[in-house]
């Protein structure tokens, strides 16, 4: 602190330079950031400690059942229900969205009414309804509408609990999917379709080659939400005594009494499935994001590589500087 800038006195240019040189550069300090970080760290440590040291969590039992065959089967069934519900739901939803956007007032109102009905009634109620369809119609026949039946089949034989669950999830999901797909279609500017028409491209081709690929950009994030929602949503089918994950862990803890441990097993699996889906969503979004932005954001892997490359370059530069200085 020998030469602080002199105020009020006359300072020559040389003196000013000297004063500037003797000033040391100090990094800006952020004391509150450090304090907040410390507090969060302590809280985290306490949480981890509570999870590990309390024997009531039964981590040994969790480990034992996490990969038990019955649990794995239940996970597989949950995945199966989710995939069927999403795929069929989005197929039907896309048809509904196209109906909503058609020029036929009948198709528009039917699609609108469908969405209205299936979004209004709770999923659990719909599931029970399909499960009990046999009460309404004992037999279901296939044939010419209002004409002769080719064959018929008992409702109970055709719609078992699994089919009822898939139908229920699909129909419910389709109502939401219809709106998601429709919003995707609306996000693509109509001028492109006119341009395509002028180029001689038929309507169906326009749909699959121009509308859908671009609509996906808007559809994917919301659809990702829906898929993740459905992974957990499948747990409502436990009321139909179907062996999906949530039902299965209940069966097990009713037998062995380890309620918390078994709930943890289910939670860990749901967490895992959701993680895989989130990562997949990130890459799918990138795929459909092409052309939307000037440059795609880097993947996490590319980002790590980028940071390492910068570090390496900086280090090499330092070595060169040191070598050059001597």
């Amino acid at each position: 602190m020998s030469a602080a800038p002199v105020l009020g006195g006359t300072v020559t240019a040389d003196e000013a330079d000297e004063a500037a040189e003797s000033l040391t550069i100090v990094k800006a300090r952020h004391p509150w950031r450090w304090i907040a970080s410390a507090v969060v760290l302590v809280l985290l440590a306490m949480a981890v400690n509570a999870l590990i040291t309390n024997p009531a969590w039964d981590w040994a039992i969790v480990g034992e059942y996490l990969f038990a065959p019955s649990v794995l089967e239940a996970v597989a069934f949950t995945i199966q229900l989710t995939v069927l519900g999403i795929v069929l739901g989005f197929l039907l939803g896309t048809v509904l969205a196209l109906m909503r956007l058609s020029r036929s007032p009948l198709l528009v109102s039917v699609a609108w009414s469908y969405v209205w009905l299936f979004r209004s009634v709770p999923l659990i109620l719909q599931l029970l309804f399909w499960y009990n369809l046999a009460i309404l119609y004992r037999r279901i026949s296939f044939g010419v509408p209002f004409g002769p039946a080719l064959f018929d089949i008992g409702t109970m034989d055709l719609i078992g609990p699994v089919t009822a669950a898939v139908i229920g999830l699909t129909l419910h999901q389709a109502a939401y999917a219809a709106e998601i797909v429709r919003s995707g279609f609306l996000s693509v500017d109509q001028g492109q379709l006119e341009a395509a028409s002028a180029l001689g491209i038929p309507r169906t081709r326009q749909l699959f080659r121009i509308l859908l690929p671009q609509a996906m950009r808007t559809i994917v994030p919301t659809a990702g939400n829906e898929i993740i929602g459905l992974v957990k949503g499948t747990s409502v089918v436990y009321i139909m005594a179907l062996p999906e994950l949530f039902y299965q862990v209940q069966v097990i803890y009713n037998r062995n009494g380890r309620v918390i441990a078994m709930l943890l097993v289910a939670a860990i699996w749901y967490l895992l499935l959701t993680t895989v889906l989130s990562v997949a969503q990130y890459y799918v979004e990138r795929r459909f994001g092409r052309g939307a932005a000037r440059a795609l954001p880097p993947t996490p892997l590319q980002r790590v590589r980028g940071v390492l490359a910068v570090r390496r370059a900086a280090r090499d530069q330092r070595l060169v500087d040191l070598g050059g200085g001597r």
Partner: protein
Amino acid sequence: MAIEVRDVNKSFGTTPVLRDVSIDVESGSLTALLGPSGGGKSTLLRVIAGLEQPDTGTVMISGVDATRLSPQRRNVGFVFQHYAAFKHLSVFRNVAFGLEIRKRPKDEIRKRVMELLELVHLEKMADRYPSQLSGGQRQRMALARALAVEPEVLLLDEPFGALDAQVRKELRTWLRRLHDEVHVTTVFVTHDQEEAIEVADTIVVLANGAVEQVGSPAEVYDNPANPFVMRFLGPVTEIGGSLVRPHDIEISTTPTEGATEATVSRIVRLGFEVRVELEIAGQEAWVQVTRGFAERLALQPGDTVNVRPNPGSRSLALSAV
């Protein structure tokens, strides 16, 4: 005739947009549909393309009645003001798209697309996406895309409307040159009379959904059919109850035959030309003269001068309308 539009009427709701419109577009010509916004020019272009259906009337393209044909079957190229680029496809794929649908062999498509990209100076941008192009580049891509399918007519809806003044001027000249090379019958919509005069061989002036005048740029400028066309195509001023172009007025300091007395109220110098503002019997008018001429006369505000329309020039009597 490449395009014949006959007695086309079109309303949006209760608002008539086109009223008994009939125009002929010659093969290989470059025609401008010129008029104020809301005049029906874009609608007429879209009716020709099949993007709108006329309420009554017919559209013939290359001698075939196309009135009820879908846009897909009309073999027209269309370029939109806001490009309508396929955002998810590269520049190359955008241009190739119409050809891919027609199941042309891959080599042929590649060759044709590269030719077109060279024509529009985008050959180095083939792998880019539209979002990575500037506005002018996007519009040139849209033009290449429209030309790819070898349309019988090329329709451009305010093609340079979304671009800045500098790029607009460049593309204007370039469109003219491109047309001289490709010779496809072209119709473009514009509200910019300068653009129409500079680029087109034929100008169709449309206002309030009706054709006001059809003619070469010189014809519509020099012999406007009515005061509206005269006002729309260039600057006008009023002298002795007639509409005159301000550069078609003689000023002299000595009395001249058939001239009117006027008082100079203001002199504005705009670069090489001078705008002399006058008062004639309480009415305002103005005359455009060259700088040299103004200096020779040594005009000052307050001076009394004699003005009359150039004997050779065309003026429109307003009282008749």
